[in-house]
């Protein structure tokens, strides 16, 4: 009975530890910005993806560009990889545990298109100054 009581009292604390672990999952991606223009409509980039968790466990890295995990780690609390991609639009990387629906941490890579199909946006105006 005492053991059961102890377990009941400890449950919130254990749950708290799990939450902190979830919150403590960090995911970093470099670079976070890809710039395209009319001459280079896509980016060929090697993204350095690194993650770190407070708890050792089974974790998988997913991206919007794949239906299957980019990579999974078993009994690890950190990892990194270089992911080569050809990118044309925004996409995200995220980490999960064994539940593929759980996004423990997520990072979005932005694709910024600098040229417009509208030529008028590139016209030079002749004012005092014009840096655009």
């Amino acid at each position, binding site marked *: 009975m005492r053991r059961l009581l102890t377990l009941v009292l400890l449950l919130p604390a254990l749950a708290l530890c799990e939450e902190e672990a979830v919150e403590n999952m960090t995911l970093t991606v470099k*670079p976070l*910005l*890809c*710039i395209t*223009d009319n*001459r*280079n409509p896509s*980016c060929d980039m090697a993204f350095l993806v690194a993650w770190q968790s407070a708890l050792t466990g089974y974790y998988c890295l997913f991206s919007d560009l794949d239906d299957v995990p980019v990579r999974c780690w078993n009994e690890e609390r950190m990892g990194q990889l270089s992911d080569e991609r050809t990118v044309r639009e925004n996409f995200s990387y995220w980490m999960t545990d064994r539940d593929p629906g759980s996004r423990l941490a997520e990072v979005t890579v*932005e694709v*910024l298109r*600098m040229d*417009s*199909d*509208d*030529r*008028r*946006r*590139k*016209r*030079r*105006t*002749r*004012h*005092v*100054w*014009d*840096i*655009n």
Partner: protein
Amino acid sequence: MSRQMTWLALLLILLLAGPGLAAEKPADETESRWRLGAALGYGIRSNPLVQSDDIPIIVDFDIAWFGERWFFDNGDLGVTFADNDTLTGSLVARVNSDRVFFGNTDTRFVEFDLSGAPLASAVPFEPPDRDYAVELGIELLTDGDWGALQLSAFHDVSGKHEGFEIHANYSYGWRAQRLYVEPSIGASYKSKDLNNYYWGVTPEEAGVVAFPYEAGAGINWQARFMLGYQISRPWSLSLVAEYERLNDEAAASPIVKDQNVLGFFAGVAYRFR
């Protein structure tokens, strides 16, 4: 007569463009019609006028709106009459850029006349004032892997200088991800009427301390170098250097001290998207 023709052309274009105004929509649904931004930094544009101050540049605002036909671009108002894979043609109304130098002049008391003889009393002299002229013209834009070309021809429609200007500008940009470099060169032919209004000196304006001067037509040359670095989606760093050589007719004016106009700006820019 030419002014009447210009106004007639404007009216015609407005009538042609009118029905399209109600159906305005951005060319690319994901692209905002607005382009709003501001740059904060430091720069100077030299002033070729005598007794004048250089023009400081601390803040540069970018306010533009682009509809299917109509657009407003930092003071220029335009209506596009042709847009295809090769060319974009617009009718544009703008304010002449030569006037900007005349806003930063100083009065100086001169004690000698044109021959160098001392005057009985010091005479105040300031470069004559000039008005802004509203100009209407055609602008053609084309681009490709070879770069971008902008051609334009503008005529005064405000009765200020009654002249015209023909301008050509070529630019080529290189991008290496966040880094962007764009040199450009340009030339502007300024008619005798335009040149003489801004750079000529009438006998009344000359007084006893300057020569009357009548300027003819001429060509200004421009070169520009822009370097940009994209820090994040809205933030970027900009470094711009610009050189303009005034035409010989303008440079020979007694109110011009320097044929070369130099400018630079370095700053950080923010763009709302």
